[in-house]
């Protein structure tokens, strides 16, 4: 009898041969979902293993064993961990992250607002830092090993070497306290006029830009330099193309993949890594929400934030991978 698996295997092989791009993308998507699930397990287990207890913290001085047990029973904490995990996972899949232990309000509602605020900040930081980084990278390549290149390198290195809270406080001291031109704290609220909102996020945006700029700029520079030294750039020059045209037409398509990769990583950082910056500037985003929740052991909130951070990270990395795959003509156009 023929092996039934052999047929499946052959079909998969054929599919891979004829549509390598589709297969790769589907594989990536599947892997991302798998990864996200693994992260959900890790987050749940990690939160479970955290020392401290919500009931204890919540009751403070008035914590009697009976009161603690009552609260635990109310929250369903007396049930086995696997039951609670699958209950939580079932809710998450439907977009329901449960209710906050501290306030009793649905987590999803709060998080939507907070995530909106975080994305608002991240969007402006990205809108400024990505073009600036790519542009500066190109300038650095153009003046390679000359003064402008060195200056760009030194400044960006200095910016990356300083911790973000230091940059944050430095900006506050200079622009808010001494010069009085910037708004601090950067608290935003519903119904706040746009202009005020933008003014409020000026300093945190500047901090974030300084933190992510150097990495992206240096990667752009390296990617373009490596492409510039390839033989096809010489071919372009010997065809009589001008330097600018050669870079746009022949270097750029080949430098996209590495640049997109580092941009995606930094975008992910803009959403995920803003915790410190949000706390420094008292900005009501995801990061601050999570920090507050950790201090009172409000686990549903911590879990939700952790999972969303992970999802953003995985999503952006997947997009970077997909762009790199699509940018590769070998995969787009199989033999």
């Amino acid at each position: 009898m023929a092996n039934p698996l052999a047929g499946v295997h052959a079909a998969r092989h054929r599919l891979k041969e004829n549509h390598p791009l589709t297969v790769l993308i589907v594989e990536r998507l599947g892997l991302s979902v798998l990864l996200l699930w693994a992260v959900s397990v890790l987050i749940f287990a990690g939160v479970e293993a955290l020392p401290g207890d919500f009931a204890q913290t919540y009751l403070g001085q008035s914590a009697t064993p009976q009161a603690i047990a009552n609260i635990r029973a109310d929250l369903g904490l007396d049930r086995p961990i696997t039951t609670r995990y699958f209950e939580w996972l079932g809710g998450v899949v439907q977009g329901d992250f449960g209710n906050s232990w501290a306030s009793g309000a649905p987590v999803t509602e709060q998080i939507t607002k907070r995530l909106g605020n975080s994305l608002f900040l991240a969007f402006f930081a990205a809108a400024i830092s990505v073009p600036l980084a790519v542009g500066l990278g190109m300038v650095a390549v153009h003046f390679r090993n000359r003064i402008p290149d060195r200056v760009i390198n030194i400044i960006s290195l200095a910016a990356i070497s300083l911790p973000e809270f230091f940059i944050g406080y430095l900006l506050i001291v200079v622009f808010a306290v001494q010069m009085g031109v910037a708004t601090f704290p950067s608290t935003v609220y519903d119904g706040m006029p746009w202009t005020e909102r933008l003014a409020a996020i000026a300093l945190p945006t500047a901090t974030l830009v300084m933190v992510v700029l150097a990495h992206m700029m240096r990667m752009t520079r390296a990617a373009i330099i490596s492409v510039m030294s390839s033989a096809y750039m010489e071919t372009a020059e010997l065809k009589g193309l001008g330097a600018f045209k050669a870079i746009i037409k022949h270097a750029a398509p080949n430098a996209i993949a590495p640049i997109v990769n580092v941009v995606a990583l930094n975008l992910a950082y803009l959403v995920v890594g803003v915790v410190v910056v949000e706390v420094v500037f008292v900005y009501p985003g995801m990061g601050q929400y999570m920090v507050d929740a950790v201090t009172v052991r409000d686990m549903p909130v911590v879990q939700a934030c952790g999972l969303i951070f992970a999802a953003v990270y995985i999503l952006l990395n997947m997009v970077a991978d997909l762009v790199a795959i699509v940018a590769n003509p070998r995969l787009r156009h199989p033999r």
Partner: protein
Amino acid sequence: MSDLLSVRDLRIGATIFPPGEEPQDIDIVHGVSFDLQKGKVLGLIGESGAGKSTIGLAALAYGRGGVRITGGQVLLDGEDILSMNKKGIRSIRGARVCYVAQSAAASFNPAHKLGDQVIESSLEHGLMTREEARKRADYLFEILGLPDPHNFGDRYPHQVSGGQLQRAMTAMALCSNPELIVFDEPTTALDVTTQIDVLAAIKNAIEKTGTAALYITHDLAVVAQVSDDIMVLRNGDTVEYGPVQQIIENPRQDYTKALVNVRQTKLAEARDQTDALLKVENISAAYGNGVQVLHDVSLHVPRGQTLAVVGESGSGKSTLARVITGLLPPFEGKVTFCDEELSAGQNKRSRDHLRRIQLIYQMADTAMNPRQTVGQIIGRPLQFYFGMRGAKRKAKVIELLDEIEMGAEFYDRYPAELSGGQKQRVAIARALAAKPELILCDEPTSALDPLVAEGILDLLMRLQKNYQVSYLFITHDIAIVRAIADSVAVMLQGKLVDFGPRSEVLNPPFDDYTDLLLKSVPEMKLGWLENVLATRKMESAGH
């Protein structure tokens, strides 16, 4: 007839940065002059470092890396392109003078279609409309013998073979109807059977379009087929310059004579067949991806003699060597050495078996640790196999250095301080240090200039005579097979197509593929290419 290109006393220099020293300015080309008329081909020939590519690129007013043109004139139709500004030079490049690089694979942008790259310069200089350029590209693809010429341009570089890419690059150069094309070793990276097609295509295209060409190569036999004149260069100086017939048939300089006479037979008569030292029986092997590379290969290496394994890239010759060394265990068949069966995997073999079979690689560069001195490199097998240390080891290393004609002064040098030929000699000494009975030589001379390669072959033959060591010599070069082999194995796509004593394999009646291979090797005669092509035409007409 007036000269299209006239180079006057061209001087080219470069700045080099030796490690740990001040940057130095060196001269690469010291005053070279030549003239080229419309529609003619000048061959520039010489070994690496002769300055031939540098001179070729100077015809486009271009210096690669830190190379600068320091003096002289390059007159294109009487106008000195070296004195032009950037814009003027740009208007010449890709329009009036085009360049065909050695590695078409690297010189095409992987992100764009071949057709778009071929017509790019014609559009850039406003010489044609897109439609006209497309049409011309189609026509060029056709006369260059590319498959499906009307759709060829829609493919990406990775979708076509190396020989096709090289022809596409020629089409790219021809597309804008240039007055001059610089061909920089356009067939060096190709297999012989592919080379002959590309060569014929280039020659045909030059004749049909009437463009002039500078043809740069290190292979005199190749350049003799396409050139009207030849200039022999060495270390940036002209050695000899004259019509192709005079250079080939009546060279005046000793250096040219040596180039013409390279690859004379070293082994006049095949020796009597000896018994088999190594037997390979019914070997089939595959790499991890499941692609089978060797199909039922059986052959043997005669004791104290040389078996040449010849074939084109991808024929499985190097894989065979990996199977014999045990680096790639075969899934079928066995290897017998001195009547003992060898374990399939190298990690299961005894140290003595490992010692008796040694390997020399094509790239001596990558086969040596750049941070070890020559003494350490050669001394390592002495210590590993024979436990030699200290003064005894050093004495033996120096003895080996003498054996490879290098001498004790190289003991403390690093590989980076050696020339290509010297590195390969050190690799030979390292193999020899283990006192092997069999040395597998994987294309040890193909990265070397002809005269240097000649020296390596002489050395190998002398060592064989002195030590009765057997060679399994992997090569794609029939001339080497003729020069040194006692028996010959011909491989094609992982299969053995012919195997036997040299006199049988290289003399009629031939196996079909062996015949094709033999006929494709350029010979140092005028009109060889025409003859081969004519014979082919007759044969295909006869069928």
